[in-house]
């Protein structure tokens, strides 16, 4: 059920108050973002947008999608194609939810099918997302394009505010997640959240899951992720992305030498074999 403007504003107020001791993500750092204390993500209470444009690179049923990139992230993925820009919490223009809602409404009027909130990590801007939804004169087709490392309370507050969760399931084990992205308890948190979001489908939200194939991580990351999806969320769209490029620190190869190359035909064929064996109807698309 879509929320009313009053419900959205109430949730936004509640979220903003909670920034006094932030637990929006599973780092649960407890930092006072309203006072500008240094947090692992560097974010205060304001939201900045460093990039936005209409895209035809997303999943086919989501395009054209208006991409809105919020600054600041709680991950440090070595291969991030938005890095280091996206890590700067005040990069770009400060977001005024009323103005952004009007802009998103115009994009929808001009043909955008979806409004894709990404980053950085958009769930760290939950209060802004709720204010954005509240400010729209009619419901916006919002997508939360996220690393899914949020606390369950964030998903509860988003229930009814966004129409689609576009979740990254990046790593198949905690060792790779820590070494490549600097996060702990990765598998436990993301799988819990995926199941949580899937249960919200009764409320109208759709869940879609992405996995970016990484060179050298077929066995340790791709296979466990695909197997988990096949076992636990067989009906959820699962998009295996094959467009890996060694961006940012991955190109240097110091900590993760296997990430310096692109995928080869053998990698892609092996991944497709796994999907066939698991009977996962993954889609190969070019979005990245």
């Amino acid at each position, binding site marked *: 059920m879509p929320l009313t403007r009053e419900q959205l504003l109430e949730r936004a107020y509640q979220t903003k108050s909670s920034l006094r001791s932030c637990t929006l993500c599973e780092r649960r750092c407890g930092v006072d973002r309203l006072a500008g204390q240094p947090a692992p993500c560097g974010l205060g209470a304001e939201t900045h947008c460093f990039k936005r*444009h209409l895209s035809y*690179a997303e999943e086919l049923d989501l395009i054209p999608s208006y991409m809105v990139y919020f600054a600041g992230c709680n991950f440090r993925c070595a291969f991030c194609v938005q890095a280091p820009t996206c890590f700067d919490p*005040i990069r770009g*223009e400060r977001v005024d939810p009323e103005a952004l809602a009007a802009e998103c409404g115009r*994009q929808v009027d001009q043909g955008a099918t979806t409004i894709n909130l990404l980053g950085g990590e958009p769930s760290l801007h939950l209060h802004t997302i709720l204010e954005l939804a509240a400010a729209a004169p009619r419901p916006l087709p919002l997508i939360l394009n996220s690393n899914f490392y949020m606390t369950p309370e964030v998903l509860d507050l988003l229930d009814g505010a966004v129409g689609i969760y576009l979740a990254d399931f990046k790593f198949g084990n905690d060792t790779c997640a820590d070494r490549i992205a600097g996060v702990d308890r990765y598998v436990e948190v993301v799988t819990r959240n995926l199941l949580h979001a899937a249960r919200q489908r009764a409320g109208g939200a759709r869940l879609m899951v992405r996995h970016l194939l990484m060179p050298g991580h077929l066995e340790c990351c791709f296979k466990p992720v695909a197997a988990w999806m096949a076992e636990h969320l067989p009906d959820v769209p699962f998009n295996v992305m094959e467009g890996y*490029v060694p961006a940012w620190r991955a190109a240097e190869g110091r900590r993760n030498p296997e990430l310096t190359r692109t995928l080869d035909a053998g990698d892609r064929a092996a991944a497709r074999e796994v999907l066939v064996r698991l009977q996962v109807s993954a889609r190969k698309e070019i979005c990245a």
Partner: protein
Amino acid sequence: MSTPPAATARPMLCSDAEGRDLVITIRLAPDGSVYLHDIPPDFVPIAAALAPQDPDLARRAAILARKASQP
């Protein structure tokens, strides 16, 4: 990790609402496949021309054409 937020924004945008200054990444693989990061509408026909055998890009071009024909 990043520094805490300051009072003023760093106003450098990677693209504005119209997609101006957007950087597009194109990777041509040895096997002839094409990978793109960020495809604004203007670039869809170019991307499809780069990989005319790619059915996925053809579908995107078709969606763009359908959108363009709508009033």
